């Protein structure tokens, strides 16, 4: 194939800025070949190099005694006792999902599952966090249908339960939806596999599906803002094959048992380039690839195309040569391609040969280490005014407001979504979608893991630092409300264009907030992903640092759930209520005002109140627990009544304006229920621990009755809660 001349246009179309190209010339002392240009573009784009975010990410807490592997590997690993480890990560697939929602979302799930089983873990759960544009936007319905079907289509076939997630709508995602997928796996803590290659002359083995022309430059696309021609990028979206991935999983885990695997890396973003370079660079070794041996599914593929293809369901391994035949037999059994495509070398060069020619010969360490690092200019987001509840006039009665809130796109039941996900396979889903955190039993128990995904983008937009804190605090609170001890998190940082100081300021602020909350709550970051340039035609998304939290439940039989359990139990509010309406859904969706400072996060109070609630759960003192978040106290009560199919009569509210108290979104709060006898003990203990507590009323009946309001019969609440999404989707 004739290789094109390296014109400034060609260089720019590879996402490399003129100064970045100069950096390449200086590094290798000559002009790169076309293949080499492709390799640099793959390694130095934002997605792979974290060039805009790296500097700021360094400040995040990543260590704890239970952390086995922090950021920098395919996924984070934590110790969960009994020789077992939990492996998890969340990653975005935003741009591909906007262009081709089914395949974009499906391959997002596939990619994150591969990250987890690459480390030797068997996936046990998937979660996701989805953000769509305004419901009235003409593309929204099509995108919701496609993304949900894609996530289900991949996970259901692969055979992992999708146990939880988040779905939100906002006009700022109209041209740039977010699809963040999280996967969790289990491994023996002494049998974790890493990407670091060892030994000179060891074979590099290619496994899985064949390489095609799909997804070439996917990572570069993910590192650029969308213009009006986004749909024309459809050919860069990969196509998923969950069946091939299921075979790859079984074959990899079987192979790992044989002791043949020295290092393993999945081919994800930037495909063969990124995985090969990473394995060599981490092991201080050179890599030589011979592309003539690469299994291809299309004819006459060039070296450039093979190096940049993002075809799915592929792995790269360094094998123990003595056991290569055993390894091959495993792959033949599973009907997967197995090819020796290169070897490790001692010269620290990344050499790519094809058709008898050397197509690339680059210094392997520098490809990663010398990637540009930017301290981009940023400005702090201006603070917004605090809104007092007394300055907000309730436009409707509180009962009407509650019914309307339950029927809003953000607060309505997401049953239509999660019923399309197999959330029951593997038979360990102790708590299913719709609660605070998903709880999945580990093997035959009694231990379990709790998972949640959280972020409140409108808070992050109004105040990135508080919003970043709140995302972590809410994840921690959701885990706590299920009875789990929060252990660690994965962060998926979705932001706009980092070359704009305002967007960069949001990233910097959110990371700062996340770091502060992680430190205060002993809740380290062990893996993550940064997705920048989420911008369409100059307009950025709301800053959306999604937090995926993982916690440990000692005994799943003791886990708490949100539904009211029986009549005549005392309903108590834990935590201080100020009636904070700024950035609340009440203010936005009932009053039509999207403004104000978001609720501040008092991390000491979070910790105190959360530790108190967790202890109550552990001692079996409480029957139902729910954290209070979007929509405030009123919505949380309705959700508890609906989940338990049992009403409640609320007679006492905390001091303050009733609409602020009922719908304000003050943080660090929970609702709990207990028998009268237990409630007295709990109130006393709360007093001693300095935890604010208000006994608000009792469970019972078939309606939710708020002070000075008409009783709201459960069927009416349920109709409001369940109706919107199916009707929007045209059922």
């Amino acid at each position, binding site marked *: 194939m004739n290789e094109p001349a390296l014109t400034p246009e060609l260089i720019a179309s590879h996402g490399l800025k003129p100064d970045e190209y100069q950096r390449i010339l200086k590094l290798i002392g000559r002009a790169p070949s076309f293949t080499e240009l492709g390799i640099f573009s793959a390694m130095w784009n934002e997605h792979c190099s974290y060039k805009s975010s790296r500097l700021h990410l360094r400040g995040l807490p990543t260590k704890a005694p239970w952390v086995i592997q922090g950021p920098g590997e395919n996924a984070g690993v934590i110790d969960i006792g009994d020789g077992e480890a939990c492996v998890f990560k969340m990653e975005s697939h935003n741009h591909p999902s906007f262009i081709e929602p089914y395949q974009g979302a499906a391959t997002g799930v596939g990619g994150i599952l591969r990250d987890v089983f690459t480390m030797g873990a068997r996936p046990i759960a998937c979660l996701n966090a989805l953000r769509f544009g305004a419901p009235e936007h003409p593309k929204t319905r099509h995108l919701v249908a496609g993304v949900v079907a894609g996530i289900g289509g991949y996970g259901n076939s692969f055979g992992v339960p999708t146990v939880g997630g988040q779905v939100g709508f906002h006009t700022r995602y109209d041209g740039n939806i977010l699809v963040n997928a999280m996967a969790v796996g289990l491994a023996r803590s002494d049998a974790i596999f890493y990407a670091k290659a060892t030994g000179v002359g060891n074979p590099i083995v290619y496994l899985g599906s064949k390489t095609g022309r799909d997804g070439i430059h996917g990572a570069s696309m993910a590192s650029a803002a969308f213009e009006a021609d986004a749909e024309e990028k459809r050919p860069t979206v990969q196509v998923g094959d969950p069946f091939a991935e299921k075979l790859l999983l079984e074959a990899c885990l079987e192979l790992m048992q044989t002791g043949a695997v020295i290092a393993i890396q999945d081919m994800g973003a930037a495909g063969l380039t990124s995985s090969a370079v990473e394995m060599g660079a981490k092991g201080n070794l050179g890599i030589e690839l011979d592309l003539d041996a690469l299994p291809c599914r299309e004819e006459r593929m060039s070296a450039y195309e093979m190096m940049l293809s993002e075809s799915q369901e592929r792995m790269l391994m360094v094998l123990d040569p003595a056991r290569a035949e055993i390894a091959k037999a495993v792959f033949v059994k599973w009907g997967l391609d197995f090819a020796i495509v290169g070897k490790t070398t001692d010269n620290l060069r990344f050499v790519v040969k094809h058709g008898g020619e050397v197509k690339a010969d680059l210094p392997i360490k520098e490809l990663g280490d010398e990637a540009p690092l930017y301290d981009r200019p940023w400005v702090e987001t201006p603070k917004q005014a605090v809104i007092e509840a007394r300055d907000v006039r309730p436009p409707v009665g509180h009962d009407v407001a509650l019914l309307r809130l339950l029927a809003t796109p953000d607060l309505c039941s997401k049953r239509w979504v999660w019923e399309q996900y197999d959330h029951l*396979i593997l038979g360990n889903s*102790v708590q299913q979608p719709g609660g605070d955190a998903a709880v999945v039993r580990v093997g035959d128990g009694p231990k379990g893991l709790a998972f949640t995904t959280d972020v409140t983008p409108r808070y992050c937009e109004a105040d990135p630092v508080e919003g970043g804190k709140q995302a972590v605090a809410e994840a921690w609170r959701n885990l706590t409300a299920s009875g789990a001890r929060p252990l660690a998190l994965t962060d998926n940082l979705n932001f706009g264009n980092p070359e704009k100081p305002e967007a960069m300021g949001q990233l910097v602020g959110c990371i700062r907030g996340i770091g502060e909350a992680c430190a205060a709550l002993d809740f380290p970051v062990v893996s993550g992903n940064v997705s920048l340039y989420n911008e369409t035609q100059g307009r950025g998304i709301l800053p959306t640092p999604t937090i995926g939290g993982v916690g440990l439940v000692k005994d799943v039989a003791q886990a708490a759930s949100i539904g009211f359990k029986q009549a005549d139990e005392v309903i108590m509010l834990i935590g201080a209520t100020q009636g904070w309406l700024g950035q609340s859904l009440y203010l936005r969706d009932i009053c039509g005002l999207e403004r104000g400072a978001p609720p501040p996060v008092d991390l000491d109070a979070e910790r105190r109140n959360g530790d108190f609630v967790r202890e109550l759960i552990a001692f079996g003192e409480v029957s139902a627990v729910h954290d209070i978040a979007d929509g405030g106290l009123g919505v949380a009560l309705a959700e508890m009544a609906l989940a338990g199919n049992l009403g409640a009569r609320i007679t006492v509210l905390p001091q303050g304006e009733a609409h602020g108290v009922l719908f304000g979104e003050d943080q660090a709060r929970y609702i709990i229920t207990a028998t009268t006898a237990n409630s007295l003990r709990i109130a006393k203990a709360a007093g001693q621990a300095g935890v604010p507590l208000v006994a608000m009323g009792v469970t019972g009946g078939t309606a939710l009755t708020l002070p000075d309001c008409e009783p709201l019969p459960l069927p009416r609440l349920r109709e409001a809660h369940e109706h919107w999404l199916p009707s929007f989707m045209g059922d």
Partner: protein
Amino acid sequence: MKAAIITFPGSNREGDVFRALADVTGHKPVHVWHADYELPPGTDLVVLPGGFAYGDYLRCGAIAGRAHIMQAVKAHAARGGLVLGICNGFQILVESGLLPGVLMRNANLRFVCKMQHLRVERADTPFTRAYKQNQVIKVCIAHGEGNYIADAETIARLEGEGLVAFRYCDGAGKVGGAANPNGSLHDIAGIYSADRKVLGLMPHPENLIDPLVGGIDGRGLFTSLMAA
């Protein structure tokens, strides 16, 4: 009772049914690979588990229905051996000709996973003797293609000979309307072969064996088989 679970590439509930059988019957089943030609000697029950065998490419169950091992499964059925096909296993049974009819895409064209009530049509078969006739049980479903269709003659025969095993219903046992999750004719959730030794059903009793995870209404099926 000696059970063999067939694992096809793409099976994904083979572990779930293994656990249910081992837990309820106290005997560990054997896994049999799809490319094998024979069942272990003395096999009493063959289980075709849920999943997406061969990716369900071409048509769900179509390729698996023609796998090597299916000859042995057919011979086992011809000898009067028990065969249980769950979800994808049911699809494979109809594709292989061991049961009549076909499973089409759900009427609303979407995959559905949820808790679902079933009515046990008869309690005198090897699969259901631990239940009562017309008992309503709560299990789960998880499928995209569970819409049972057959020609009028076949349906008439199934009904006439009492070969409908389970029907979708609501909590009170009432069939029809919103209680039918996928559009199946006559609310059919599962059917027997003429000798009632082969059962295919879409729901997943194997996921309902534990009070901590949804309930124990699925145990009855495995308890019934224990006596086989």
